[in-house]
């Protein structure tokens, strides 16, 4: 059953139709999550006893940083699928994740910098966490540059898949950097195995925002993938049928 679903998902018309039906639902849920998460984070959560209201940057900084790594893992996973099974949809997910992945990484760096200024007294330090996150941004940009440099898009996707897989070594470095090296960056608050060291009223909005970011990623990647698919398959029968029906 699952294999049949994956096989169907690999078929462009099926993927196009399914994603089209999913998008309004994803958008609705995403908006609700952002609204509740922002209200909880900016209004309901109490100010931090050390950082005051500046800690509220956490609600955009931490989800963006998580997404920067999550999207990269999705890219690497799709890259592996594209290399092993030559699935066109996997290639399309891979390359269309790179833009929004770069956006998340850029936002993690910028909001972190803006948060760092009042808390650390500096916009930037060349420590392991910040440097490895910056490297991640360059990996995303490298993927985009490599893809656009190769004209044959199937070949380009394979080259990009290899680059994405090699870059995976950076992900555990980012994650553990605050434990392996001493730094200004605070240690993990949420993903500790014992009780998270954060007030519930602060934690719940953060989790809502994290899920909202996942939905946003899904929406953006589907929008981009659908465009990509439509253009690649513009001479195929299913696209012609789609446009004949007046949609």
């Amino acid at each position, binding site marked *: 059953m699952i294999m049949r679903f994956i096989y169907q998902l690999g078929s462009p018309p099926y993927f196009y139709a399914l994603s089209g039906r999913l998008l309004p639902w994803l958008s609705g849920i995403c908006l609700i999550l952002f609204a509740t998460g922002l209200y909880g984070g*900016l*209004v*309901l959560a109490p*100010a931090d006893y050390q950082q*005051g*209201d*500046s800690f*509220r*940057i956490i609600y*955009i*900084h931490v989800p*963006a940083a998580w997404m920067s790594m999550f999207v990269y893992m999705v890219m690497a996973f799709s890259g592996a699928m594209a290399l092993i099974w030559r699935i066109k949809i996997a290639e399309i997910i891979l390359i269309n994740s790179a*833009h*929004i992945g770069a*956006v998340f990484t*850029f*936002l993690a760096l*910028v*909001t972190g910098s*803006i*948060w760092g*200024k*009042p808390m650390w007294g500096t916009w930037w330090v060349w420590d392991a966490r910040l440097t490895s996150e910056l490297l991640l941004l360059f990996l995303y940009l490298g993927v985009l540059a490599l893809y656009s440099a190769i004209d044959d898009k199937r070949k380009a996707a394979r080259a990009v898949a290899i680059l994405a897989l090699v870059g995976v070594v950076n992900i555990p470095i980012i994650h553990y950097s605050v434990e392996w090296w001493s730094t200004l960056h605070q240690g993990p608050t949420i993903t500790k195995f014992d009780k998270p060291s954060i007030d519930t009223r602060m934690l719940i909005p953060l989790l809502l925002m994290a899920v909202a970011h996942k939905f*946003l990623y899904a*929406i*953006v990647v589907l*929008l*981009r993938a*659908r*465009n990509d698919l*439509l*253009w690649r398959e*513009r*001479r195929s029968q299913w*696209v*012609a049928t789609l*446009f*004949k029906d007046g949609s």
Partner: protein
Amino acid sequence: MGSFNEFIHMGGYASYVWSSYGIVLLAFGLSIILPLREKRQLEKRIRRIIQNEQSSSSE
């Protein structure tokens, strides 16, 4: 959270907090709007391709 002014003031960190949120809003807005605009343009181009093929095959 007493008043609206207090909320805007963010305990003195207003410029840091609101600039962060502003940048994020701008980036997310563009990430949604750009693919939507691209879709409209693609649809126009594909419609033209299909029309050209139909007119050339009917000749």
